[in-house]
């Protein structure tokens, strides 16, 4: 299948602004984007901006991960003054301090908002707290941009339900080998959700899924785990080497996208349940048992024969879990490979060679 035409970030942002919309630079990882939509704010996610890091290293030690470095670089390159809002969900120590560094010391023109995600286990106090957080964010957004329009949150939840269904369908088709799209295409389309408004994203996904029904290419099937799919050359290597991603356990992807859709009760309470039902994740404090069972399940559904961990260098939440996950997977007959990357750098030939050796080992 040929790649669908996806509006670029810049085009979409320009059109959105021209229509009078507000823009929020949203840092990783989980946050209630439905609330932003409901307030007429477009969240544009900041995961791996392709910029040369020239300013950020003056503020960050070299042992801070490249997601944080690139995100700060983007703000310092002007985004911090041109957006209407910067949102920092609580994800890890590095993003926590980046939020404080930006909000307290660097003070770009755009206001910063912070959103604390409670950590597992999600018992009653965590549920109540999360709901309180939603109410607080709702009030803060109303303070900045005015009260949300009547029915706007209900509409946002409708979009969210439609997207949850489309994401689930895309993942299912891929797992069953019924999606004729390589890794590069799959992630290019799904990652458009990092900046497209649902009114543009929903038709894009619907059209793409309809056109992409078909057999996946043959090859050794794997599960991809880590934070982000990529860098781009790594996805190309997978396609070229005949390694087929059958499923993923990526923080930026399935760990957020494969949640249950919001229910139909009180809108904010329904939104709270979305967060609480996201798949297990290192940054949410999920136990190793849960994570292992989840990844094994992903491999089983997609008939994958191994797991490739693509880890961002210095990413503590992921790196702590790694040895025990690998051990558990090995015991389950699933070999694994670990590649460490910097998000703005090519994975390189060495990664391709290791992937090739891994494929041969699995065959």
């Amino acid at each position, binding site marked *: 299948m040929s790649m669908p035409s996806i509006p670029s970030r810049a085009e979409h942002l320009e059109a959105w602004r021209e229509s009078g919309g507000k823009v929020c630079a949203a840092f990783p990882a989980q946050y209630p984007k439905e609330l932003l939509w409901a307030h007429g704010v477009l969240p544009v996610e900041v995961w791996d901006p392709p910029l040369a890091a020239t300013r950020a290293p*003056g*503020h*960050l*030690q070299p*042992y*801070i991960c490249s997601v*944080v470095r690139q995100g700060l670089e983007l703000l310092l390159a002007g985004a911090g003054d041109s957006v209407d809002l910067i949102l*920092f969900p*609580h994800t*890890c*120590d*590095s993003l*926590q*301090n*980046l*939020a*404080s*560094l930006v*909000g*307290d*010391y*660097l003070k770009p023109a755009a206001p910063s908002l*912070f959103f*604390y995600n*409670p*950590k*597992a*286990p999600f*018992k*009653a*106090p*965590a549920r*109540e*707290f999360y709901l*309180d*957080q939603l109410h*607080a964010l709702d009030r803060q957004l109303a303070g900045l941009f005015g009260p949300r329009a009547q029915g706007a949150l209900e509409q946002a939840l409708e979009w969210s339900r439609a997207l949850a269904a489309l994401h689930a369908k895309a993942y299912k088709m891929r797992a069953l080998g019924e999606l004729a799209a390589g890794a590069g295409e799959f992630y290019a389309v799904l990652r458009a959700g990092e900046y497209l408004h649902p009114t543009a994203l929903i038709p894009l996904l619907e059209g793409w899924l309809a056109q992409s029904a078909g057999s996946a290419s043959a090859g050794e099937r794997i599960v991809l785990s880590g934070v982000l799919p990529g860098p781009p050359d790594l996805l190309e290597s997978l396609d070229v080497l005949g390694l087929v991603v059958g499923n993923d356990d990526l923080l930026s992807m399935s760990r957020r996208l494969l949640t249950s859709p919001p229910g139909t009760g009180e809108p904010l309470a329904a939104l709270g349940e979305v967060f609480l039902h996201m798949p297990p994740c*290192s940054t949410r*404090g999920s*136990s*190793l*048992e849960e994570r292992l069972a989840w990844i094994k399940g992903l491999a089983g559904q997609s008939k994958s024969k191994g797991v490739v961990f693509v880890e961002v*260098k*210095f990413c*503590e*939440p992921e*790196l*702590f*879990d*790694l*040895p*025990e996950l*690998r*051990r558990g997977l090995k015991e389950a007959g699933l070999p694994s490979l670990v590649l460490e990357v910097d998000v703005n750098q090519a994975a390189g030939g060495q990664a391709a060679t290791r992937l090739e050796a891994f494929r041969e080992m699995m065959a």
Partner: protein
Amino acid sequence: MSLSDKAKLQFMKDLGFPALASLQKAMRGKRAPRKANPDFGPPLKCTARLKEIMTRHYYLARFAPGAKPVAWVTSGAPVELLRALDFYTIYPENHGALCGAQKMGPELCQVAEDEGYSADLCSYARVDLGHMLSGKTPAGKLPKPDLLFCSNNICQTVAYWYKVMAHRLGVPLVMFDTPFNYTEISQDDIDYMVGQVKDMIPVLEKAAGKAFDMERFIQVAELSRAASELWGQCLETMKARPAPMTIFDAFVHLAPVVSLRGLPVAREYYEILLAELLDRARSGIGAITNEKKRLMWDNIAIWYKVRDFSELFASRGMNFVAATYTNAWAETIQHLDMSQPLESLAKTYSLVILNNNLEHRLNLMAKMVSEYAVDGLVVHSARSCKPYSLGQYDLKRLLSERLGIPAVVIEADITDYRYFSEEQALTRLEAFFEALEAA
């Protein structure tokens, strides 16, 4: 808990450890005394008592299993909940510092790395995992925990690290989630934390095999408060000129308030330390003989360099009189209020420096610079510790600009000296010394 194990622990407390301590004292007496360094004032007499307390704690720990429930605890966790249930507590971070000071960091980190743990993880965690995998420790033997108790008020790292230990050791993990204080603490935050405490009590009771008693908890919390307040007063004696102790001493004398908080021994220890420090301050006895400049330290100690740095700075007539790190165990204790035990516990533990925003840190440091008459700032950028280190470059710049004091950043690690370049550190320090001396 078995009666015979309880009897054994009691025997070791009453007879075993005192006999060992006498033996060690006799052996020490035979050793030639270390040659006095003329750059330092007379050593603190309390140090011998501190050694005895900490040796006793680690020695008795090996007899705790079966006699008491054993918990491994993070340094910022509300340990009072465990003390009220009579847990024997081990602090892996304190153990990590001990391994670091004994220069065992790289060896133990390597064991963890060989098992697949990245060399980029916090080295306290790697040291601890290395110890767990190899059994190696300078503390004799650490008892296996019945429970792990963790709070992310110092970092998220401990949550990841304790999760791994819970999985490997097959023991329950109790987590106390303290929302990061981006701006100011809210009632929602407090309610959430209190709700968690109420939820965790039955889990702690189950592991302890006894019921939680609020009165006992209040007694423990009062002991804790007393120890932390006394510790704060000990630190305040360093406002005197010359300061009666250095921060390098304080890094060591910090151990009881970290590891034994809530026990009578911690309060008693700080009573005698405070008396000695006040006496030295009154008599004009300085920790170093020629205190020309007064410095502040930011971040955890570089444990394998404590002695070398202490000598280096003393030889230049420079004394560290304040540190954000040592201050952390005194800074928030005023919130502990027994008329609202759980709410105030939540505030005390969630407002600690590492769970607080960088504006708070900047203001705190500016205040300390003024109160302790600080002339210069040394910032340890600790590779292990992202929450302490990310933001330090700007913190240093802003403090220097605001207060006009020289400052230097040293890139190092807390225990893993493979990431420390002596040459680079000394070059930076030489420039810093020149700036200070010219100021």
